[in-house]
């Protein structure tokens, strides 16, 4: 993945958030406070603006800028968490391109940042439930020598499964946890946006 593709990825995420804003907000209204779609859209719109005219030295710069902007513009739980994900990922990628293995390691650092900050583990019904399986699939593909396009495709599928699999879970973190057992039966909005982010990556990297 080169700098241009990275930019395209982030821009495509912005487009995806625009498109899925209402769906994400609707999911968040079932078990949260009905703002996740708006938050993500606001954040990535700001990211696109921030990248405009920005001259990154490497792939990582794009992602660090993305993360920093998310932290500055989103607020809520998703702002610091996604911000940290992109920042921590970007910090690992110093070169002008990143191959599948480099990306896998960087994403892992991103997830570690999210978990350090938010303390969510797999099964807590959060974005981690989409991110973790996505990165596992990505890593496995990379280790198996697949290219980043294939790895991203597998990650996207795993993220989507992970997001769907949050439905039967009871939330243990974030606002949804206040519902207790009433959070069961609803898909987590953050896991859903995480799946969108990896679906977008797969589309951008598709040869």
């Amino acid at each position, binding site marked *: 993945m080169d700098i241009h593709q990275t930019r395209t990825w982030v821009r495509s995420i912005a487009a995806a958030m625009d498109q899925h804003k209402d769906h994400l907000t609707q999911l968040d209204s079932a078990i949260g406070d009905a*703002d996740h779609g708006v938050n993500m859209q606001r954040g990535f719109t700001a990211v696109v603006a921030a990248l405009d005219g920005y001259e990154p030295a490497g792939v990582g710069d794009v992602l660090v800028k993305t993360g920093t902007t998310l932290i500055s513009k989103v*607020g809520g*739980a*998703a702002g*610091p968490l996604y911000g940290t994900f992109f920042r921590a990922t970007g910090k690992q990628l110093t070169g002008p391109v990143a191959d599948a293995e480099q990306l896998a390691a960087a994403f892992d650092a991103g997830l570690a940042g999210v978990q350090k900050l938010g303390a969510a583990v797999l099964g807590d019904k959060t974005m981690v439930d989409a991110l973790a399986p996505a990165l596992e699939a990505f890593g496995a593909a990379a280790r198996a020598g697949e290219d980043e396009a294939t790895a991203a495709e597998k990650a996207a599928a795993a993220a989507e499964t992970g997001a769907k699999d949050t439905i039967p879970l009871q939330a243990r973190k*974030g*606002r949804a946890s206040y519902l*207790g057992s009433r959070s069961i039966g609803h898909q987590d909005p953050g896991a859903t946006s995480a799946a969108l982010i990896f679906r977008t990556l797969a589309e951008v990297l598709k040869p």
Partner: protein
Amino acid sequence: MKKLINSPDTVLDDALAGVAAAHPTLKVDLEARIITRAGGPSVGKVALISGGGSGHEPLHGGFVGPGMLHAACPGEVFTSPVPDQMLAAAQAADGGAGVVFVVKNYTGDVLNFEMAAELAGDDGIEVATVLVDDDVAVKDSTWTAGRRGTGATVFVEKIAGALAEQGADLASVAEIGRRVNAASRSFAVALSPCTTPAAGKPGFELAEDEMEVGVGIHGEPGRSREKLEPAAAIVARSLDAIFADQPLAAGEETIVMVNGLGGTPLIELYVAYADVAKYFAERGVRIARNLVGNYITSLEMAGASFTVCKADEQMLALWDAPVNTPALRWGA
């Protein structure tokens, strides 16, 4: 959705422009989105800073002024503010004695304030944090993100703000804030939902004969959904939950707030307060001070929240200290 706004996207900025125009005692930085005292920082004094999603007015901007907050950071409606705002507030409000962040316990608020505290620390500003988590509707367990911060925020801001005004040091101001929080419990009941301008639809639905018991300030569902009850039963239910969590003995002194969630007429809050007073009288627990009105709202939600603080003498004295803010003012 029927709102007196110009556009869902500009609600916060438009409202801040209104706050700026209305209150010469406040300084509103529309760029940084912070509200500070017009007089600038109080040199040598600790500065109290709070913030959170908008839609809970007068909280927090309405509590900026001598005797209470030094700065408020309003986020988008129902979305916690970003670290940049809190950092800007810390920089604008620090009088050299450090700042106290008053943070309501929501993942978003906690994470953003945490990041801001780090940034402010890097900037040489001493930061202490008081986490408010008074809502007994949420059982604190491994299954939740902990209790939510609600009505006690007003008490913490008033009392810690008064101590800061008297020149106490950072540790003492933070300590009284934590003590007030530890002594406070809240419980809320919603009769109708509310709609954020961005969502355009109510955050939840309630049938014509239902109420949401233990509702959160963003309209998060609470303990249960029940058939609508008379005020006395709603009060008893709420105070039972509060007293179960923190028993109060006859003769003990309290500060009590009956707070409207935004869409409840004041006459109904007084009806509820009569039932609250009766409940306390029956148990011999004293209400030494009270607030009845809209202090921490949830847009146009109908319903009320009840907050009880078991107050010691120092708290009562600090409660009575002068305060001069748009929403709370006495002795000044």
